[in-house]
């Protein structure tokens, strides 16, 4: 059994890599959404809202299956990692968009007028007035979303491995082992992910207290 530990360590590093990429792309998508929303174009706004509702009201698993298996219709065959990153970013993007939007809306209109009265253009307003103030509201939410995405990434990993193991179901001996290995995988994930999750949750709680002064 100890032979599989290096394999699991590799899996864990892969999970972290995927999650990090997913989180970064989600934040980028979130920023993009808010920039597009600020144009106040009716059609754009409807599209963005449609995207947000669509990705928040459907399970990640189905999104991934659709991406991985469904897109072969168009002759697109994506690797598992690419699928995972796209799926995570698609889902995470809408959550990050909401997190950033909460921050931006928390900035008072009066502050914006204050910036305007100094002669700021839209970009200067965003950079010097809105963004610094929005960040303190958005960061706890972004942190919570990051934890959420990390958990979902580990689920993606587990599913991918299980799918692979289903292929070898025909051989009974290996089949027996697969359950054992799977159990080991779970335990392994727990030993590493659990402390990380707890740490992140504590960090998130502390950020929230700092924000609300509770």
């Amino acid at each position, binding site marked *: 059994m100890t032979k599989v530990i290096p394999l699991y360590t590799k899996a864990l590093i892969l999970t972290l890599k995927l999650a990090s990429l997913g989180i970064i792309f989600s934040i980028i998508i979130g920023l993009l959404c808010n920039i597009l929303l600020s144009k106040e174009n009716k059609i754009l706004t409807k599209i963005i809202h449609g995207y947000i509702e669509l990705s928040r009201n459907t399970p990640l698993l189905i999104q991934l299956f659709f991406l991985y298996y469904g897109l072969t219709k168009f002759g697109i065959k994506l690797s598992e990692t690419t699928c995972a990153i796209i799926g995570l970013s698609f889902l995470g993007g809408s959550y990050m968009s909401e997190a950033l939007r909460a921050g931006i809306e928390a900035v008072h209109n009066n502050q914006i007028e204050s910036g305007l009265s100094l002669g700021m253009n839209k970009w200067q307003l965003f950079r010097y007035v809105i963004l610094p103030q929005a960040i303190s509201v958005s960061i706890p939410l972004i942190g919570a979303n990051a934890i959420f995405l990390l*958990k979902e990434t580990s689920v993606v990993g587990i599913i991918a491995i299980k799918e692979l193991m289903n292929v070898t179901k025909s051989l009974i001996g290996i089949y027996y082992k697969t359950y054992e290995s799977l159990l080991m995988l*779970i335990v392994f994930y727990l030993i590493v992910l*659990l402390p990380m999750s707890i740490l992140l949750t504590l960090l998130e709680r502390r950020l929230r207290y700092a924000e609300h002064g509770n």
Partner: protein
Amino acid sequence: MQNTGINLIFEGQNLARILQGLLITARVAFISIFISLILGFIFGLIYSSKNKIIRFFCRLYLELFRIIPILVWLFIFYFGFPELLDINIDGEVVALIVFIMWGIAETGDIARGALESLPKHQRESGMAIGLNKIQLYRYILLPQAFRRILPGTINLATRMIKTTSLIVMVGVMDVVKIGQQIIESNVLKVPDASFWIYGLIFFLYFIICYPLSKYAKTLENKWNK
């Protein structure tokens, strides 16, 4: 040739089977939600106790389900325990157990939050006019807590419905599994079966969850003002 994809859905028994699968998914979801709400509320009352030890264990239980992904819990009950205890548990039963335990934990936290956020003077003025504990809860605290609980529980219900997509991983014949079977048996005839079937499942989840989340938002707006 182009249309055979979407027609696959209506071919033969397919639609009936998909709906059967949907029924199973719905069964798991609604039973879990229903029981979770009732037992979860009681858990919430327990959780809001002043006793530190009780609170600690309640908190521990809650965090276990928050930190460990639900899929992992499903595997623990489906693969782990049977191995340890040498028994067999049916996938659907596993799903129900896990979802209900999760639901109780989260509902309890929402209920506790609502109860604790009620202004203290409500409690005090109730006691001042001579209500005992049960009457206090029934006439004053619970109706007000209800408003704070409802949006959160609808949000939880939506999340639980989305998570039912995972039960295919523990061998339940839910809508996802049936979809996969249809795809598998048709993959040679209809190359884009995956697109339409998964697309359909995607759509089904959406039309269930979207109205719920919209409703929760409306309630939140109405009651927060």
